């Protein structure tokens, strides 16, 4: 690979890892902050991608819209729609124990998958949606990929800043309280359902944002791009490997695990072509084993959670 090719690959790699970092940050609000198990990450990601695609593409007979609106509106709509879906599923399950949320969220993932595939008027069906405009194209001539990467980094930074603030704020403290001892938090007068619902919806909105970035990055989306199981799973591995509850851990985990995942591709590419299906299954297997090893030997992840020290008040 030439130097320029290597650089282009690096930019591509970092952009992709950045999109996953946004997902992991969203999941961190749900699982890391509030202890809620969302197994439908891919669904919220896909909703975000499709929403932004429909909002920003030009009019097409192949799917709903498009409305040809500017990309920031697409991003915003993606977050809102993903949040609304999260609100619905949250209202149904959040007053039950966390297993029920996990079960219901695979249902949501399944429904989203079916709708993407079957509702052609809305999503273009299996043909997908093409021609999604790339944000900020031509701002720096010839450096479109780099500009998009910068946008992703800015978004990660903004989200990080926001999440650190809410994590340290009383709101975050209540979340940790509910996560670690719900009965005690309720006894202190905290409405655990409302707090959990807030954390869940924020997380879903971030997943929607990530999906929007993805759609504009690749320019073409179709149902195959959103394997509901694996997309969800790898985000889980990223967060747990990086450190649940730690905002820096979520970002680090995304880059590390995406590196491992991409690295295994270099290895399996050496295998003869007839083993292609086996090779991709082998890569999933390795990530699955990696998760188990982390859960057993380092459940706190690379960067363990560090809640701020309690403030002692003198009464």
């Amino acid at each position, binding site marked *: 690979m030439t130097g320029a090719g290597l650089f282009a690959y690096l930019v591509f790699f970092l952009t992709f890892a950045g999109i996953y970092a946004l997902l992991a940050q969203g999941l961190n609000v749900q699982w890391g902050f509030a*202890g809620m*198990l969302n*197994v439908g990450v891919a669904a919220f990601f896909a909703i975000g991608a499709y929403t932004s695609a429909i909002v920003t593409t030009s009019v097409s007979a192949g799917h709903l819209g498009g409305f040809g609106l500017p990309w920031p509106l697409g991003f915003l709509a993606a977050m809102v729609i993903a949040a609304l879906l999260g609100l619905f599923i949250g209202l*149904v*399950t959040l007053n*039950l*124990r*966390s*297993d*029920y949320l*996990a*079960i*219901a969220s*695979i*249902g*949501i993932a*399944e*429904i989203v998958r*079916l709708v993407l*595939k*079957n509702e052609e008027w809305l999503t273009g069906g299996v043909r997908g949606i093409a021609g999604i405009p790339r944000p900020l194209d031509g701002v720096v001539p010839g450096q479109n990929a780099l500009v998009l990467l910068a946008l992703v980094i800015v978004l990660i930074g903004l989200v990080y800043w926001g999440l650190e603030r809410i994590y340290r704020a009383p709101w975050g403290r209540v979340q940790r309280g509910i996560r670690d001892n719900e009965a005690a938090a309720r006894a202190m007068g905290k409405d655990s359902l409302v707090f959990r619902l807030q954390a869940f919806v924020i997380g879903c909105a971030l997943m929607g944002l990530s999906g929007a970035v993805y759609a504009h990055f690749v320019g073409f989306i179709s149902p195959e791009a959103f394997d509901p*199981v*694996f997309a969800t*799973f790898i985000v*889980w*591995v990223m967060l*747990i490997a990086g450190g649940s509850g730690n905002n820096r851990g979520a970002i680090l985990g995304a880059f590390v695990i995406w590196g491992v995942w991409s690295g295994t591709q270099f290895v399996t590419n050496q295998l003869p072509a007839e083993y292609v*299906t*086996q090779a991709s*299954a*082998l890569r*999933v*297997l390795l*990530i*699955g*084993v990696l*998760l*188990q090893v982390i*859960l*057993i030997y380092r*459940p706190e992840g690379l960067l363990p959670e560090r809640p701020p020290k309690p403030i002692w008040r003198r009464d």
Partner: protein
Amino acid sequence: MIEVLQLLLYGTLLGSIIALGAVGVTLTFGILGFANFAHGDLMTLGAYVCFLIYTQLALPFWLGVAAAVPATIFAAMVIDRVLFRRFRQSRPIISLISSFGAALILRSLIQIVWGTGTYMYSAQIVLAQRFYGIRYKWDQLGIILTTLGIVVGLHLFLGRTKVGKAMRAMADNPTLARLSGIDTERVIVWTWVIGGGLAALAGLFLAMDTRLQPEMGWFLLLACFAAAILGGVGKPMGAIAGGYIIGIMMELSTLVLPTEYSPVVPFAILVVLLLFRPTGLFAGRSS
């Protein structure tokens, strides 16, 4: 009318398969305290082991069944030994995450061994028989009757034997069961024997009725969870009733919904249930 009766037959068939899967789900949920996301892929494993013996090695079908059941039980126990047992002292939710990983490990192993294509047990095309206009195949009647036999056997096992009673006690209240001197690790072994064995049969029946495909069990998992919650978590007989209800509702839904949306039915039932009666129809353990 004939159409409705036809769907009822198909629903009972699908319900039998879901019921067998849901027993394992409800037992693990009740006894070990977590929703086992690897259960669907245990079903898939059972189906593929039978495929290996019966189709690939051309041995008798009963030998395929006789191999699939212990192989699946063995896989379930290995997963429990290597993974879930380590997480028994931590929060059950960690086991759930681990089981999600175990599901993907199982599925990728199946893909590595058998590839990603779809198969059938037998290339022979069996024509449906007709009974006053209702189509059926002998295979399908066999599945329904075998399941009924298993249900009766399971009912006797849980009601009459000491292990069965211990299992029900533990599914109902693990702490109380432990305090009254029940050997919990032994009950857990039996949980995997019953859950894993029935999962193998569920997968095998599903493969007989449709096709083999690496994701076949995963796609049925939501229906099994819904059946387990419908029947009340920790109640095997409730899970079986739930399985039949969900199977029949899924088939009947094709009267009003496009066929490709029948997987949505278990989710819809689950949502309604969680909103109005989260402990299940037969009042299982509260959440």
